[in-house]
């Protein structure tokens, strides 16, 4: 057991946890932030993507205890003052989601893409999202959403 302090969506939380608790489990089970999803057990699907210190990571590949002191943003923390983040708004406008299961990971991953590349091409968007699987949308409207968000941010 280990005590960890994280800043999650702007709030400090301190918990005593098992050393081997995955960040994804920590977020879902200890903090009840169930917007972060778990879609696989081999770190392939990207449903669990969150930001740790501003960078997108698959939260199922990290141990919560290993990132003591970090700032974590989950999908719940993306919008400010009830205003949708431009990426969230663009996903809605372009029908970039169907069942919504991959969506939190897709959005968190796409936000990080724009942090790295303000104006990505279609090919660059598709390549960046290679680590996020969506079974519903065929990706086309996700690409359209990311392009729109790039224009609006």
């Amino acid at each position: 057991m280990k005590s960890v302090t994280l800043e999650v969506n702007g709030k400090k939380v301190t918990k005593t946890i098992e050393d081997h608790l995955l960040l994804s489990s920590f977020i879902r089970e200890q903090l009840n932030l169930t917007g972060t999803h778990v879609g696989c057990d081999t770190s392939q699907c990207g449903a669990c993507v969150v930001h740790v210190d501003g960078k997108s990571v698959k939260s199922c590949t990290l141990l919560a205890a290993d990132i003591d002191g970090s700032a974590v943003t989950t999908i719940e923390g993306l919008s400010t003052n009830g205003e949708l983040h431009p990426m969230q708004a663009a996903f809605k406008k372009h029908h970039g989601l169907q069942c919504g299961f991959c969506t939190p990971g897709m959005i968190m991953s796409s936000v990080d893409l724009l942090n790295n590349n303000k104006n990505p091409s279609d090919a660059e968007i598709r390549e960046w999202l290679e680590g996020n699987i969506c079974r519903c949308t065929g990706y086309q409207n996700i690409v359209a959403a990311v392009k729109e968000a790039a224009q609006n941010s």
Partner: protein
Amino acid sequence: MASSMIGSRVERTEDKKFITGKGRYTADITLHGQTYAFFIRSPHARAKIKKVDISKALAAPGVVTILTGQDIIKDKIGGLIAGWKIVSKDGTDMKLPAHPPLAHDQVNYVGDHVAVVIAESLEEARNAAELVNVDYKVLTAVVNTASAMTSEAIYEGIDKNLCFDWELGDKAKTEEAFAKADRIVHLKLNNNRLVPNAMEPRASIGEYNSSTDDLTLYTTSQNPHLTRLVISAFNGVHPEHKFRVVAPDVGGGFGSKIYPYAEDVVIAYAAKKIGRPVKWVCERTDSFLSDCHGRDHVTEAELAVRKDGIVTGLRVNTIANLGGYGSLFATVTPTYLYAPLIVGLYNIPAAYCNVKAVFTNTAPVDAYRGAGRPEATYLIERIMDQAANEMGMDRAEFRKKNFITAFPHQQCLVHNIDSGDYHAHFNKALELADYKGFAKRKADSAAKGKLRGIGFSTYIEACGIAPSSVVMSIGAGVGLWESAEVRFNATGNISVFTGAHSHGQGHATTFAQIVADKLGVPMANIDLVHGDTDKGPFGMGTYGSRSLAVGGSAISKACDKIIDKGKRVAAHMLESTPDEIDFKDGEFIVRNSNKKKTIGEIAFACYLPGTYGEIKSPLPAGVEPGLKETAFYDPINFSFPSGSHVCEVEIDQDTGVTKVVKYSCVDDFGTLINPMIVEGQVHGGLAQGIGQALYENAYYDETGQLVTASYMDYAMPRADHFPEFKIEYTCTPATSNPLGVKGCGEAGAIASPPAVMNAVIDAIGTDISMPATSEKVWQALRTKVKSAKKAA
């Protein structure tokens, strides 16, 4: 506003919760005092269970209970069922093995359910599971589809592992067509086994209240009412009126969540038994092993053709793999959902199809996006190409020569096709795809050292499943109507209840558009309720592209009843007669006058019939208070979406990598309610179909181990696998439902595999099976070069 709602690209009302992380999927639910379940699954494809020793595990920390097949027997929990009876051609009924939710004497595939450990935490359940000692006597597994009939029988009493040997069509007439044919074209095909892979893994939570005797099951289902019916009536877990099934937000289904699984039955049963909530969430590896798979056909087909290119007959023999047991829709998928469509959208006067369905020691196979129709389309579209090529005819022209052109068209097999215009969508697709410019593009690719091919797929599907009297006469265990309730509240807003279930399809938006259009009430005042057996009327769920055609029609019918009652009330209030009242854009108007009442006023009057201050709203004699109508809609026919898809691929000869570089399609889905949502459905279907053609394959080794049981081994299509799809529509409204809609959910997955494969074969000039992976393409190109050298 009213009529503009149909055909309008309304943004989805359900999106906000999903993009902000506020969706509520089954795994997100935590109940007070819940326990955790972990299933012990068979590591063997086929084995006798000699003994299950749970004594050590029971004593492990945190364990609440462990249930095995013996408990299932003791508590008389019934087996899982196959819901559609197929009769073999010799008149005998299909043969099915028993399918207990927890096996007690034999396991029949890797992942089969042996026991469940229930503990205070998931970790404790998992640790205790390690201590359960199952003594197996391993038997030889039957794995291969083609050779299953000649392998050792898996089940006593099921000869040759044969579930049924079924036929459809006029055999004699078909033989005659072949006897007279100028040319007979032969083709052997494999339709590869797929894993549906909805991104949300299955999950179930059971909760029992012993003081009220209420049992609730939260589960990842496309079909909560049917789940309740089956678990109640067949598994005998709990009576239907005291049993509630809730399917909250569900993260995709594609067929794999239509039916209750062993885990659902066991979780409901266990919660009742221990009197505490039990939660189970599937891990992805277990999803690969135990979700029902799709497809898995081996087929030989022959086409009889006249020398002028007119097709006169089709003869098909298919072996369909059912896996280890008969799953709920497993038997209808390779029969009535498949065989009637083997003739596609062509006017073929004679056809015959024989289907042998076999059991193997693999995961059960059931309906997966398209269910039978992709297999039929793959067959006919591949053999049409083969025929055109053999006869030296243009593949597009050859198709056009054989299209059905007059409607209604009675096929030689089953269906009476009400409407369509196949030339219209094919011509439009050829233009969209710039077929004329293909030769130039091919030359450009060749200049870069690449091979380029083009492939067509012109398809038809039978959707809007289905007229109850028809399906029940051919073995269905249930009717396939749909229900709706439109409930006005006194303040004028509306709750709409549907028996369909949305798990990505956007019903909350599309169905509200229908109601807004019919009743002239703004979308914001309409709420759609689904997925909870305690809320709406019994319904049949979502699959087979049926929700809009059948469920939407039920809603439309309920709205008609509301308007009807509204007219009677309005007539009374306006001192007129109901047949003098017109209803338009939310207002009841006395014809040729300016006397009118809004539908909101009528709703208010219905709930507050009498005098209330200024308002006088007496109801006419004999009219009950309230404004709420229920409708059950049973379609008079299937609907028949069709379309033309054109795929272009470019192949790197050095690596064998195939890239889909252009994909154009024109579909006829009848009337479109929300084109934006329809496009999304097409995109998703295309991704799955292209996935089947180029990447995906569920592969069992000869001992029955699933080699492709994770995303590292099973190739899921990713964003960078696809070009931008070009999508357009034509429209011939369906005549079989009041909305004129045909269904769009499965089209992409049905049409695209043959479009892609015809393009690949066009590029490499030799036959190849799905999935056309880079390795297979590379091998095929090597073999071709070698045999060309030998010939020279």
